[in-house]
């Protein structure tokens, strides 16, 4: 039986020559299964919105309703959390949401989940936190320190509060990356472990005799696999949604720094 961790191994799909960029260094352009599934996910997102908005009508058809529903869902989220300036950040939040959702869902249909690679989720988390820092410094300049010094807190409490706020801010990209990574990894490991039970208990039953007791156990595990797959679809959507919500919350912290809307 293959190990449940086998599915997360990176395998080369297409070997391309290494390119030397001046000032950057050698870049390996080879395509592996992680990059392949990300390309498929990104293409599917573009294809989906190209198809659903191809024949846009005032009275939308079935496909257009799905596309517009997804669009309006994230639009409500961004403007609801960030306020009237949420529209500016909507493209980023929507891109991140649909890309993660496509990768998560593809992982349930293909053999490989791109979001179960820490490198992928850490890049997404890093991008979000870099955007937060960039927007924060452009909008607030030196007033960024107010992020760690809440207004209306007495000075003797600040000695305690400021380090906590600083640490919690530094942990944001870490938890952003680990949450997505851990959820996808844990879910897929559990799926494969239960699927492995079906095979090993079935092999036990094939031996006959007392081993036939393995059949109800195998049936139970098969039911478990079906239930877990249904749960994984929920988790796939929920984790993409959580990433989008947290991106909005972190952006709201720096966009509306020092005043609540």
């Amino acid at each position, binding site marked *: 039986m293959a190990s449940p961790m086998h599915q997360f191994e990176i395998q080369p799909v297409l070997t391309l020559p290494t390119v030397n960029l001046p000032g950057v260094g050698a870049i390996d352009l080879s395509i592996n299964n992680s990059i392949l599934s990300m390309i498929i996910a990104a293409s599917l997102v573009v294809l989906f919105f190209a198809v659903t908005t191809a024949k846009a009508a005032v009275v939308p058809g079935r496909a257009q309703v799905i596309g517009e529903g997804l669009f309006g869902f994230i639009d409500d989220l961004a403007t*609801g*959390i960030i306020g009237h300036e949420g529209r500016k950040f909507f493209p980023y939040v929507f891109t991140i949401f649909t890309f993660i959702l496509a990768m998560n869902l593809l992982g349930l249909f293909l053999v490989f989940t791109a979001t179960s690679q820490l490198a992928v989720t850490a890049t997404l988390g890093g991008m979000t936190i870099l955007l937060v820092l960039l927007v924060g410094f452009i909008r607030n300049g030196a007033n960024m320190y107010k992020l760690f010094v809440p207004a209306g807190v007495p000075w003797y409490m600040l000695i305690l509060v400021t380090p906590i706020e600083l640490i919690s801010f530094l942990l944001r990209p870490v*938890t952003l990356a*680990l*949450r997505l990574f*851990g959820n996808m*990894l844990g879910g897929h490991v559990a799926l494969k472990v239960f699927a492995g039970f079906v095979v090993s208990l079935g092999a036990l039953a094939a031996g006959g005799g007392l081993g036939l007791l393995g059949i109800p156990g195998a049936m139970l595990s098969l039911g478990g696999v079906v239930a877990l797959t249904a749960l994984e679809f929920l988790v796939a959507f929920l984790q993409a949604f*959580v990433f989008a*919500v*947290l991106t909005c919350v972190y952006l709201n912290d720096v966009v509306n720094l020092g005043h609540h809307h």
Partner: protein
Amino acid sequence: MEAEAAKYIGAGLATLGMIGAGVGVGTIFGNFLSGATRNPSAAGGQFTNLILGAALTEALGILAFVLGLVILFS
């Protein structure tokens, strides 16, 4: 004790941290339900806050889970 055995025990102990996340997420959803059944009209507007709280709590459990994996596979 063999080092390999200690590694497996350590990985198991590290994942015990998920107990806390389980209690926390259960508290969040339980309290949300008890609030939502008392005032169903206000429940819809709090969905984002509900998911946000659950996600922030869950992250700590995932941290313990990842730590277990790191111990197991390093």
